[in-house]
């Protein structure tokens, strides 16, 4: 991308681009994690993508207590204590001088501003892999639909290079923008997390009204969808909830497959290093057998292929 283009291109904020990803759509993919999400799912695997701003991330295990960051902070937001490094978010002005002075990467900045061209540069080397496996690039997060201009620019740039784009979305976005984005994407991975409005709000911070609306708009627009259902023991894996989700799915004829995503506790570990508080979640990951059983039931109820991982 030339410098001229760069200034006119919309900027986006992402946390990471994961290459050789096998779990975010068909084939081998690169997954672009957008930063910022309107939901606050209690089980979120990627809590580092909650906010739309760059954030400081701590990895206590890598800290050598050298004190470089404390000396670098103009605000006194960091202190070395006997319990390790203490970070006072309210004092932080997000200059991130501290991370620059951290020799080990124990402190790092999560979130970088990029153009579609920047992302393209990072995902193009694997184009051959996408072609060989029917893969491509997945816009995930966070919520890609929450940065629609950048997401559209990215999909456009990918298409110009013959790379297919999948949108992995929670469905919570202004409908018109959301549809425009979905029309451009080659595949929609749509998360359904619950069926009950109140429960949805309790678990994710938002109710389901807008999500349901968008889900059925996709059907009206004839846009094919893969539904992904997080399975969080004790929170949404009861039969009533799952049969409700199945019923919802059967009402959208454009759903072509379902994937159950078993809860894993990685998000909790990640959240511990972040500057946004998140209530601790005490959930045991579902067993493979349990997931297999649920997938069988879901397939039977919907008549669709249902896999799990």
């Amino acid at each position, binding site marked *: 991308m030339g410098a001229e283009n760069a200034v006119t291109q919309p900027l986006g904020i992402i946390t*990471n681009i*994961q*290459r*050789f990803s*096998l*779990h975010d759509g*068909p*084939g*081998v993919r690169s997954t672009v994690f957008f930063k910022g999400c309107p939901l606050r799912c209690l089980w979120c695997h990627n809590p580092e993508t909650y906010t739309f701003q760059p954030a400081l991330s701590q990895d206590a295990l890598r800290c*050598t207590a*050298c004190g*470089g960051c404390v000396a670098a902070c103009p605000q006194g937001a960091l202190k070395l204590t006997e319990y390790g490094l203490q970070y006072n978010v309210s004092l932080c002005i997000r200059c991130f001088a501290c991370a620059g002075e951290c*020799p*080990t*990467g124990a402190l790092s900045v999560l979130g970088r501003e990029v153009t579609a061209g920047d992302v393209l*540069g*990072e995902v193009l*080397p*694997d184009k*051959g*892999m996408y072609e*060989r*496996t029917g893969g491509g690039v997945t816009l995930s997060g966070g919520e890609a639909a929450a940065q629609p201009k950048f997401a559209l620019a990215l999909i456009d740039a990918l298409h110009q290079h013959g790379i297919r784009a999948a949108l992995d979305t929670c469905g919570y976005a202004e409908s018109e923008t959301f549809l425009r984005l979905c029309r451009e994407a080659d595949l929609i991975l749509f998360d359904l997390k619950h069926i009950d409005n109140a429960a949805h709000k309790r678990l994710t911070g938002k109710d389901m009204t807008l999500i349901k609306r968008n889900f059925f708009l996709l059907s009206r627009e004839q846009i094919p969808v893969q539904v992904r259902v997080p399975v969080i023991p004790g929170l949404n894996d009861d039969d009533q909830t799952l049969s409700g989700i199945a019923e919802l799915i059967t009402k959208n004829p454009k759903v072509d497959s379902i994937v159950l995503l078993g809860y894993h506790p990685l998000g909790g570990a990640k959240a511990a290093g972040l500057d946004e508080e998140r209530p601790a979640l005490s959930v045991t990951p579902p067993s493979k057998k349990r997931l297999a059983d649920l997938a069988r039931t879901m397939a039977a109820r919907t008549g669709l292929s249902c*896999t799990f*991982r």
Partner: protein
Amino acid sequence: MSMPTLDERLRHLIREKHNNTLEKQKAVGSMDFDDTALILPPEEKRKVVSIMSGSGMPIKDVIFNDFVPEPNHPNGGYYGPVGIGSNFRKFLLHHPPHIDPMSALAGAYMVSFYSYRKDVNPDLDYSDLHEMQEKYKLVTGIFAPEHFCQDLQIGLDLGWDGLRNKVLKYRAVHGEDKYPFYDGLLLMIDGFQGWIENNAKHALKLSEAEPDPEIAAHLRQLHDMNMRVAHKKPETFLEACQFILWYQMGGRSFNSSGSLGRLDVLLEPYYQRDIAAGVLTDEEAVFILACQLVRDTAYIQLGGYDEQGNDTTNPVSFLILEAARRLKLPSNLGVCVGKGVNRELLRRSVEMQFQDKCGNPRFVGVDALVEGFAKNEGVTLKDARARTNAGCHWMAIPGREYSLMDCVKINFAVVLEIALKEAVQRYEAPSIDQILDVYETHLRLAVETLAKGFTFNYENQIHNFPELHLDLMSYGPVELGLDASNGGVEKYLWCIDGAALAVVADSLAAIERRVLKEKRYTYTELMRFLETDWAGPDGEKARLFMQSVERYGKGGTRADELAVRLSEMFVKAVKSARTPKYGYSMIPGLFSWANTLEFGEQVGATANGRKAGKPISHGANPNPGFRADGAATAMSHAIASVQCGLGNTVPMQLELEPSISADEGGVEAVMALIEDHFAKGGTLINLNVIDADTLRRAHENPELFPELIVRVTGFSAYFKSLSPPFRQLVVDRILDKSVS
């Protein structure tokens, strides 16, 4: 009682093999090298010695305590064609026979003849080269044996008597000055024939004592077949395998020679003939092949192009793969992958990697190798297609090329160490370009020193340890009366491998960022840190800062750019040089093999935050921790970008967690990864599909995992057989820990 089924016999052979391995581990301790499948001699005949291996690594080995070679030199050594030939003959005739009645094939080798050597011929002096060799700590390849590949077709067409007649014929043509060479060859043949006959006779003796009539009949057949194979050319699939096995075991013992070449192509006519005649089934063929593979871990290419560019994949390719799959023992199959090569072979191989987790087979990118090799002067496209994967990372045109592949190495980290000191002295605060200018000068001097060594070796190895075994089945040595090391074969394209690419690229990137751009440290400080091995809290902090600079392999980093530039510089330095006197050219590659540890010990602290003495990076692989997601595609892209592009390999050492096999399309994803790497110019992939937890537990307690096999580099080995530092190296690489 009767003869057990093929399956039962195979299980017996596998059990025996495990027992042998345990015994070997007890007798010699760690083995950071190929598990070559030898069977130890009876306990009362063993003597443990410390020697240098054929690849120049110090190893422990077992020899016969009752065999004493006859010296032909005042220093007590034996050298030259007659000295070597006569002692090898004596050795083979002394070698106890080994018949396992459950095997389809006779024989096993127990001891390396090569391990009896005390020293090289002291009359052959290259002390004029020592200073420069020592300065750059070069692995020179001088007096290194083998590392090229015979064409077994020569032997299959002639048989041992035919080979003898051929040698006699040319002996008569040439003058007396060639007699010692021809006599050396005749002594070799004599030894082989005697060894084979001794085993045949032993089979007969066993048959007489065998109560079971079916087993006794099988032993008699072994006797009859081997009496034939000792003289006549093989006529059946079974005889061809037996013939090849004798030659291979003898070669392994003679001087570690370990390549068979295109076994599938060599055996196919016998297979087709026997199948058509109804005297062989696929199941029997697999069993016979397994009996062969269990006795030696020779390097075998499967599939690939013939001289016309047609795929050579045939039913035997799949049968060999199946034999290795059933054995689940260390073996060294190189499966060719290319636009014109049967994809089914690749699919089967990847499935096998997932199922067995034995690091077998490896994958050979024939398109880039052919295209690259054909770029060398005097090499035609036909030559390039004929070249075969014949060793750990190396290639050879069977019977026509001598190159000392894998025996000659430059440790780039040593060159940088020298260059950095000199650049700082000369420029005070040198730019990266200035450091690289000095680096290039030293790199060229190192190449020049190696080139002089090649010429020395070319003129002198014949007087030390000639290649009599490989000569017998090469084109030229017998006809011309010249050893392959000494001008007997058609092509001399000397190999020079570079090592520690990532260490140097990451060091330069770290200097550029922390010293030149951020000015966090001055050169004076940096040099002090390096000299003191990052001593003190300031040193440790500096080390961490240098280490945390984005590395080669991440993609799009400065270190990635520098790695490409370093590779190009190396290619230029090697290609612009010639061997003195003879004007032969050399071919660059990137590979470090087990030298990864030894090379690390030779180098002080490096600017990428590596501590003094720690291992260097493996071949062209990035340093562990090169990327948070460790993405295989990123590594693949990086290694493809630093290929030397002239037909010698720059392997990718790839570790994959098997969890992806559970995913739909896991096999397809790995197939795509392999094909994509090769489409980008990649040349060789050593793959380990391994479970990280298993490896972690095996590292903590190797005793609990006696059968865990890992592909160390080009060769696979029992994890338990590796020395603790080598195990650590493998574990760090696979679990992708940061360098420290």
